[in-house]
């Protein structure tokens, strides 16, 4: 049994929150740079240029890429041979978020109840998804999720007879419906199968993948490729001004499902596609 003390978790999450909000992942940065060269709409090119410059300023001056520093979604894969000591895991995570958002001058965007709407003033609680995995590792992903793009995300249980055409239509319609709101160019995370909540979680995990990665399952890889083409034909474009660059990537994650169901969830991620992995 390997022991991991909660203070180590808190400290790495605190510093991780600051880093993830100020430094755009390299793959996303490179995808924006490449899009500047391939995009044919001149207004879109100027938007993409601003986004690259924005990422440079944020990194060089250690300021948030976006003022919406998000709700912190935390995925934790816990090896079943790990023993967490000195406190409770969720408390340690939330303390890390609290410290990181205070020390990093990050925005506090959480209200304590969806109807009462009083700001908690420390950006807690995080949304925490834990998963028990083999081994003695402890892997934490931080995903500060902005409200603008989360508001454009959807989930629905389709009928099996809707098939791939129904799935593609649902996803492409979601992108068109979102239009300018989720800050395109977006990353589209698709969760296919399982149950309603499983599909939604898969769609969130999908956005953790690196741009350029391809799903090892051929059927999912084919769907990713088809969706990427269809989404980029919508002419939503950067900032919704039109153009060829509506999505930087489409990632599909699938899971077996019931004979009666075809669940599909779509997490829309804005171009400030911030995520960071921490291994403890």
């Amino acid at each position, binding site marked *: 049994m390997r022991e991991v003390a909660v203070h180590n978790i808190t400290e790495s999450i605190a510093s991780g929150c600051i880093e993830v909000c100020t430094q755009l992942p390299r793959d996303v940065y490179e995808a924006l740079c490449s899009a500047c060269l391939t995009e044919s709409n001149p207004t879109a090119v100027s938007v993409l240029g601003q986004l690259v*410059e*924005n990422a440079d300023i944020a990194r060089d001056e250690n300021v*948030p890429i976006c003022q919406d520093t998000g709700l912190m979604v935390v995925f934790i894969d816990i090896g079943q041979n790990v023993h967490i000591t000195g406190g409770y895991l969720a408390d340690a995570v939330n303390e890390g978020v609290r410290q990181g958002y205070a020390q990093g001058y990050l925005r*506090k965007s959480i209200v304590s109840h969806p109807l009462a709407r009083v700001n908690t003033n420390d950006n807690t609680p995080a949304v925490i998804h834990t998963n028990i995995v083999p081994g003695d590792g402890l892997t934490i992903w931080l995903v500060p999720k902005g409200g603008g793009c989360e508001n454009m995300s959807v989930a629905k249980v389709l009928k099996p007879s809707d098939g791939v055409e129904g799935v593609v239509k649902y996803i492409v319609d979601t992108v068109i419906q979102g239009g300018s709101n989720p800050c395109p160019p977006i990353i589209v995370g698709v969760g296919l199968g399982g149950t309603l909540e499983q599909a939604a979680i898969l769609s969130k995990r999908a956005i953790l993948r690196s741009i350029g990665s391809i799903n090892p399952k051929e059927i999912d890889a084919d769907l990713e490729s088809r969706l990427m083409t269809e989404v980029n034909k919508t002419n939503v474009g950067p900032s919704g001004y039109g153009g060829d660059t509506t999505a930087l990537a489409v990632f599909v994650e699938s899971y077996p499902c019931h004979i009666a169901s075809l669940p599909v969830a779509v997490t829309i991620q*804005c171009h400030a596609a911030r995520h960071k992995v921490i291994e403890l």
Partner: protein
Amino acid sequence: MIEIFTPLDDLTIASLSAGDQVLLSGVVYTGRDAAHARMAETLRRNEKLPLELAGQVIYYVGPTPAPPGRVIGSAGPTTSGRMDAFTEVMLNQGLKGMIGKGIRNEDTVDLIAQYGAVYFAATGGAAALLAKRVVSCEVVAYPDLGCEAIHKLVVDKLPLIVINDTKGGDFYRKRVK
């Protein structure tokens, strides 16, 4: 690139067309969901707003806190559609301009034309870049709302694009006149 200054006069507003790229300088006020809800409630009760909206511009933004030595944190636009429900009330107070990102509903587009106002978009997510155009920042109302408080900003050459103009033009809907 067209340079414009706040407060916006009617002649300037009338000269703007959907798709125009502008650099805006002068005073703008921040306001988003919670501040709009509170202002609308104040007006519903026939009470006085904490600021004069006539001729002013509201920027839909909730900035990050200013680190030491900076006037403001990062400050990009939030999704404007959430403020559509409050827009007529604000236009009725004499509001002349709005800055945000994303499409407005058709009713709001009509109201913007009807009231001789203008809706601009700033690049969503370009918050570090946009913050560099903010010269000063002070909270002028609702400090209890934190990032959603109303801040008075002085901006210098804020890069914007005209989305909805006085002629009913709409850059997102590709209705440019």
